[in-house]
């Protein structure tokens, strides 16, 4: 596994958060002034089951170095079952990406409730660290999208 030695590397991280739990959890970590790196940008989706694998690949294509999905804890989905589908889809997708030799640490799913502001911040800190260590995403990049 390649390890990044560029200390100035700032990864781009896309976080997909479900509207009901994780987006609220992210808000809570803001309300509690819990810090996490500015590399993380959140996209609000209604439910974790709205996340199409295409969006993840799209993010990598456009220059993301890591993509994380946050949703309600299994059993707590606002739509009752959405996160169960998301869980299966992501398990299979991540396994496939790993199979293709794409660093598995670049993708992640974490269940964050609306009350878990601290968990949200901690998760983001960890994830940014992990992706920073990996360095820039080269295996799923689209050279046409890279800054020249």
């Amino acid at each position, binding site marked *: 596994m390649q390890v990044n030695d560029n200390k100035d590397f700032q990864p781009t991280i896309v976080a997909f958060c479900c509207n009901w739990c994780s987006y609220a959890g992210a808000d809570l970590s*803001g309300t509690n002034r819990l810090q996490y790196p500015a590399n993380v940008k*959140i996209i609000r*989706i209604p*439910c974790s*089951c709205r996340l199409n*694998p295409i969006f993840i690949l799209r993010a990598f294509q*456009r*220059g993301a170095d890591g993509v994380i999905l946050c949703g309600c804890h299994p059993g707590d989905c606002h739509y*009752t*079952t959405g996160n169960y589908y998301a869980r299966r889809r992501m398990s299979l997708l991540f396994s496939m990406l790993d199979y293709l030799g794409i660093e598995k640490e670049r993708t992640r799913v974490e269940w964050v409730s609306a009350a878990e502001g601290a968990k949200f911040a901690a998760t983001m800190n960890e994830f940014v660290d992990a992706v920073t260590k990996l360095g820039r995403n080269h295996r799923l990049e689209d050279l046409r999208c890279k800054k020249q």
Partner: protein
Amino acid sequence: MQRIGVFVCWCGSNIAATVDVNAVTETLAKEPGVVYATNYQYMCSESGQNLIKDAIRDQKLTGVVICSCSPRMHEATFRKAAASAGLNPYLVEIANIREQCSWIHKNKEEATEKAIILGRTAIAKVQLNAPLIAGESPVVKRALVIGGGIAGIQTALDIAEAGFEVDIVEKKPTVGGKMTQIDKTFPTLDCSACILTPKMVEVAQNDNIKIYSYSEVEAVKGFVGNFTVSIRKKARYVKEDICTGCGLCTEKCPQKNVPNEFNLGLDTRRAIYIPFAQAVPKVATIDPNYCTKLNTGKCGVCEKICTAGAIDYTQKDEIVEQQYGAIVVATGYNPIKLDNFEEYAYSQSPDVVTSLEFERLMNAAGPTGGVLLRPSDKTHPHTIVFVQCVGSRDVSGCGKPYCSKICCMYTAKHAMLCREKYPDTEVYVFYIDVRTPGKNFDEFYRRAVEEYNVHYIKGMVGKVAPSGGKLKVQASDLLNNEQLHIDADMVVLAAAIEPDKSARPLATMLTASMDTNDFFTEAHPKLRPVESPTAGIYLSGCCQGPKDIPETVSQASACAAKVIGLLAKDKLTCNPCVAHSDELMCNGCSSCANVCPYGAITYVEKEFRQPDRTMLVRRVASVNPAVCQGCGACTVACPSGAMDLFGFSNKQIMAEVDAICK
């Protein structure tokens, strides 16, 4: 051409202290499509909102981006403002630069850069926003209450009082539920029947209420405001409208040895029966499992003696279909089966009883006429041991992990009543904790200990062994750290309560969610405790979690208030951010319907003009926007990309991704 306005909020210093709002405004002003950008101290204030409204009118904006606090905070506010200025409210997007930017970053440069990216992302999205118009669907002004216990009765009465029609479906021959079996109620010790039966009568007499007793819900179709429910009226072999409830048949029926479920099998009834004197409707029912006539064709005693001519052995189950605007689940609870708790010898000795059985043994209308006698030898017990938490708070897997909530109080009640009626009785209560968090509850418990000298012992009963007419109880006293051996005459087990078995299949029919213990889940545990996440389904009583009577009644009334609120509307406004299927792309493969938690997707055979101008009939998906809640599960299940979600379309999300990764 897009004309987008960008409004950056300072939120006093909440945003402005960490984000350079001027830099954000200037940078975003240069974005393609942006024609107007400004910032203001408090965008959500009236003057802030006016700023937005004026810009919408003056600049002829086609989209608005507000860089401010979380959309969870003020999205509705800003949408309303836009709408009042004539812009479709769904053409407003919020960039969350407070909770997700200024509040989590300290470095101003970093936070400003991020705010710009978040703003740009919102601009990218808003360019693809479509004006959405919330649809409307009519409301059928009639409610269905499933379960006719105190929860269902209270909900039905409250709804009926407000002038709406309500149907109660009760699977037993009478309404009333568990409360009819209870003797006295804590902490006031008033007679359960005395407070319940008037309500049962009220239900029967209310013109707005129709009772389907001895009936069950068979199928549920439709959605909030417009459910179609099939109700199976089970054949009771007695014409309900003719039977006068005189009870003659229930005395003359030769089949005498039917276990009486009302007394939990502690005595018997006839094959034709009225569960108890105050039953509503007061109509006889023939138990088809025991009736000689139905099983062998011989007998017919009841028919002969019935002067009203109400008996009809040929009756069949009947299916009634009815429309409802709202459905209330009030399916209640049952004590758990005690098969997993052999150590208490429940199946070995008739003198080991559950608390509910004990209620019947204490009840004047019970099998012993209210005199406390041991079931085995009908003698008066002198030593009674109560065991708490039998199957409650049990994480071993044998019982239930939750607290059944009512046991502490009814055990105190039982203990107290024993001591009051029979002061020569020694009463022991073994407990893990005594939980009394209710009005006058702790006082009640203290009275049991202090005034009535009930022996409360913290500790568990290890074993109950029947021996020579006695029950040898081995227990530990944790506070005194000693082993106790008590020769008891009776042991009363506070069995955990669990949701009725009919709840799980019902939840499937209703597409309502349940937790792992089969309690219905509420839409929000704190803020929407009487609604199911599925729109139009409401929760009343113990189907949602263990409750005592006052709590059940207050929840039932709260539930009624919610139902009344729904039925008071003529039309429902639907969430316009719902899924929609592009029929030309759709394959009709059913993947979407298979993941839809609401049953919002149906299939239609439709004729299409093919590219080669021939016509072809194809099966395609169609989303009912009134049912769809907009989760988006279908959009990903759909391989052809025919399914998309308004407000969170594939293109919008991809535009956001692009903007972030730029």
